[in-house]
């Protein structure tokens, strides 16, 4: 691609150069459009250090786009009783993380709904996407819980959950392996 660009630019044909520039701009514009429009699952680039340090000490640094702002707000208000553990933080950190979650919370299509208990794994879209995963797979020693996104989603740390980046967890039965391929 860059080779083609260089070639056409080196010819220094002015109209061609502007066409290439225009095409590049259009491409860039198209590429950035979905990210800007749906504030989806991709991890934002400006993750506060406190988020990776505090939240990701116990679980994956979930992309904020996986829950709506109201859910995040409730979670940040109840950190001393956080899904069975005390995850309380200094007020400064609560504020910093809360503000960032608010800015990057999910606003697109299905993430607008608040899931029960503000659990990502109870969202309708999550359950639909994982409907073929047998309950026994979640409790495999190699998986342990549905919070362990990265066991199967190799790009989870970067907020990539595409089906292409999947990896089978260790210990699947033959039938479960067959189901995996479907």
């Amino acid at each position, binding site marked *: 691609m860059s080779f083609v660009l260089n070639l056409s630019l080196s010819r220094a044909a002015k109209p061609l150069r502007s066409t290439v520039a225009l095409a590049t701009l259009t491409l860039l514009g198209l590429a950035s459009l979905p990210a800007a429009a749906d504030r989806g699952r991709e991890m934002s680039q400006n993750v506060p250090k406190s988020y990776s340090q505090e939240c990701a000490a116990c*679980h994956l640094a979930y992309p904020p786009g996986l829950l709506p702002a109201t859910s995040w707000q409730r979670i940040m208000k109840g950190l001393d009783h956080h899904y069975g553990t005390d995850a309380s933080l200094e007020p400064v950190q609560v504020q910093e993380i809360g503000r960032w979650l608010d800015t990057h919370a999910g606003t697109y299509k299905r993430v607008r709904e608040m899931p029960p208990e503000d659990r990502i794994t109870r969202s309708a879209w999550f359950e639909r996407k994982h409907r073929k995963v047998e309950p026994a797979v979640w409790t495999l020693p190699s998986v342990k819980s549905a*919070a362990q996104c990265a066991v199967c989603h190799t790009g989870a740390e970067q907020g990539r959950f595409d089906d292409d980046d999947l990896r089978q967890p260790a210990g699947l039965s033959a039938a479960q392996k067959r189901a995996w391929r479907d």
Partner: protein
Amino acid sequence: MKTPALAQVRFPVQRQRSWRPLLRMALLSAFMPFVGLSQSWATDTTPAQQLQRFVTEAGRPGNAVAGERLFTRQHGNEWSCASCHGERPLANGRHASTGKTIPPLAPAANAKSLTDPAKVDKWLRRNCKDVLSRECSAAEKADVLAWLISLKP
């Protein structure tokens, strides 16, 4: 007439400007080592210093046997410390609900463990509440740290 007057005015100003930054730099560099030192004191200590902190507060030495007992037993709740950190925390632990890997707690297996006072305080506060439904006393903290520090691979 004009020129010497200007020169007279300018000269002292220029001289002042030239030594002020120098003085500022000298002052700064004189205090810099102290700033650096106080920062490193604030974050990096040794596990032994952390133990000493709780021993001083409790007014008695840490008891490793009592520490092991506290760590490995349940205290009326579903989790013990070992539920996440393992019975002998020389190896990686695993978060009891999320399954996330937790680095070893014993300093012999993890050079970073028990070296940051703020982290030590934060995790003891939270985890004691999870396991004992209350904060741990200084004596209990001294016991657990004494045991953790005594662990050898």
